[in-house]
């Protein structure tokens, strides 16, 4: 190795170290931004160093492509609404997977033309790269579509779905063996690519829209693995290192996310559980049980004269974009000398940290936000809990009812507070599609309506007090 290659090699190692540190820092709140920056620097170093590689002779196309990519990437990142971030991440991720697949495809194309026989390990790694990358590409696009509302968020199922998927898998394996063992044919390779793209669609459509964050996280792990396989193909270690890092970290993160929902990953992928936001299920699940409803004036009285209020935001707040109104309400209450806290359930909303992001966007000070474990012991001393569009995360059935599908999921113990006021549009179920006994609890007051309007009404009424 001459001096240039040595410098390039050392720079790659340095980039690897920065990637590792970046990923580690990303996992802790105090250092997360620095972690992201470190990872970005690592990427920059890796790119620059690669451009110095003697193998690279033409720069025109590279420059054009990088500029196009940068423009698209930075604009979409800047313009995307906070609430649309999960699908944005999904689409980015799909593109990464797609890039790996394209690299493998191009490399296979070139070598298969040059020689009639390809080394076994080359065939296997190109196949892996194109398969995982292709699947990630279309899978992520479907996930994007579901979150963006372009594709129905409900699980899309049809008869014999699993059989079809299994057949597709078998076809991929058979073709793979053919390609690696017998005929390194371009056409066969293209067919594998198409099958991978199809599988990506097929595997994601039966999953409910609300489970997409988990799916995206899993696909993120996949795109790492695809990059890793591409690293074997082009024989570059930094791809292997960064790809394996992300592959493993993504897998762990997916696990953590599933655990927070108290559901195994298999259930997310094959459970067809999340019926999405449309969940109108169990029509008027109430039946003969009675609920107490309040109007705006009453609700304002109860809140305005409380000493301590805990706000529990949920998916409904996000759906109604009520976060700014909620911040106004909390400031108003504080001005009246009322102690206001926000109780954040780890899986409230539809993506991890959903509530934190929204409330931060609305400038609610972070100091008012409390994790489930910190706030739960306090509920018995709280005058009023104001639930805004949350449902599953406060369902006491998770604690009491062993037959409930969400039994065992940790919840916010709002039923232990003195009064509970719930803003939602109806008695309809939430994400998990199950009834909530808390609605019929004598201490519960239902304040029916869409979150944003109702909170604004509250603000107006409290000002009148």
């Amino acid at each position, binding site marked *: 190795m001459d001096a240039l290659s040595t410098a390039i090699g050392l720079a790659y190692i340095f980039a690897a170290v920065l990637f590792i540190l970046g990923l580690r820092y990303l996992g802790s709140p105090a250092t997360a931004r620095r972690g992201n920056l470190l990872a970005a620097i690592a990427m920059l170093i890796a790119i620059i160093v690669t451009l110095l590689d003697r193998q690279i002779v033409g720069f025109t196309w590279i420059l054009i492509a990088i500029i196009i990519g940068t423009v698209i990437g930075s604009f979409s990142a800047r313009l995307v609404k906070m609430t649309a971030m999960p699908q944005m991440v999904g689409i*980015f991720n799909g593109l990464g997977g797609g890039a790996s697949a394209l690299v493998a495809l191009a490399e296979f194309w070139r070598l298969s033309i040059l020689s009639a026989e390809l080394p076994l390990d080359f065939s296997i790694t190109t196949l892996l790269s194109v398969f995982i990358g292709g699947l990630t590409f279309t899978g992520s696009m479907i996930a994007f579509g579901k979150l963006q509302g372009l594709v129905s968020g409900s699980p899309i199922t049809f008869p014999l779905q699993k059989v079809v998927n299994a057949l597709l898998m078998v076809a991929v394996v058979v073709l793979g063996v053919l390609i690696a063992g017998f005929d390194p044919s371009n056409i066969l390779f293209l067919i594998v690519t198409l099958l991978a793209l199809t599988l990506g669609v097929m595997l994601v459509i039966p999953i409910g829209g609300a489970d997409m964050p988990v799916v995206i*996280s899993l696909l993120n792990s996949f795109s790492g693995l695809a990059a890793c396989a591409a690293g074997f193909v082009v024989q570059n270690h930094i791809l292997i290192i960064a790809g394996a890092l992300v592959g493993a970290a993504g897998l762990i993160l997916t696990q953590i996310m599933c655990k927070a929902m108290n559901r195994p990953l298999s259930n997310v992928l094959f459970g067809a559980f999340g019926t999405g936001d449309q969940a109108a299920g169990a029509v008027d699940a109430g039946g003969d049980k009675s609920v107490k409803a309040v109007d705006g004036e009453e609700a304002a009285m109860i809140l305005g004269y409380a000493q301590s209020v805990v706000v529990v935001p949920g998916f409904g707040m996000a759906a109604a974009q009520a976060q700014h109104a909620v911040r106004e309400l909390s400031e108003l209450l504080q001005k009246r000398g009322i102690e206001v806290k926000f109780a954040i359930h780890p899986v409230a909303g539809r993506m991890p940290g959903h509530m934190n992001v929204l409330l931060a966007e609305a400038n609610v000070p972070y100091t008012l936000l409390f*994790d489930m474990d910190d706030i739960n012991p306090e509920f018995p001393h709280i005058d009023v809990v104001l639930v805004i569009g949350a449902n599953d995360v406060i369902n006491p059935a998770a604690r009491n009812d062993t037959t409930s599908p969400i039994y065992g999921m940790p919840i916010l113990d709002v039923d232990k507070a003195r009064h509970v006021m719930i803003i939602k549009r109806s008695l309809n179920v939430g994400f998990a599609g199950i009834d909530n006994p808390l609605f019929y609890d004598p201490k519960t007051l239902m304040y029916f309506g869409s979150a944003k309007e109702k909170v604004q009404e509250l603000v107006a009424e409290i000002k009148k007090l």
Partner: protein
Amino acid sequence: MPQELMIGLTIFVLSAFVGFEVITKVPPTLHTPLMSGANAISGIAIIGALLITGRNGEPFELILGVIAIVFATVNVVGGFLVTDRMLQMFKKKDGKSPKA
């Protein structure tokens, strides 16, 4: 098995362990940013895309390469920016960093 593959495998295994160990107890607030940051890192495929595009091969390869670079660049640039935007929000107001 070629020597190169064996070395690649060793590096893969070690890196995967680092990846596993590095992510331990991430507070739920950070799940989305972490996912997003990791996603940007997976755009490392850009290196592969650069290598295949830069060597001026067949037109078909070149086209694939250019598309691959565009894809990966969007992933990288967009990924890091969007992650930073998310994380920025946690730092707002009182300037204090959120507790874990």
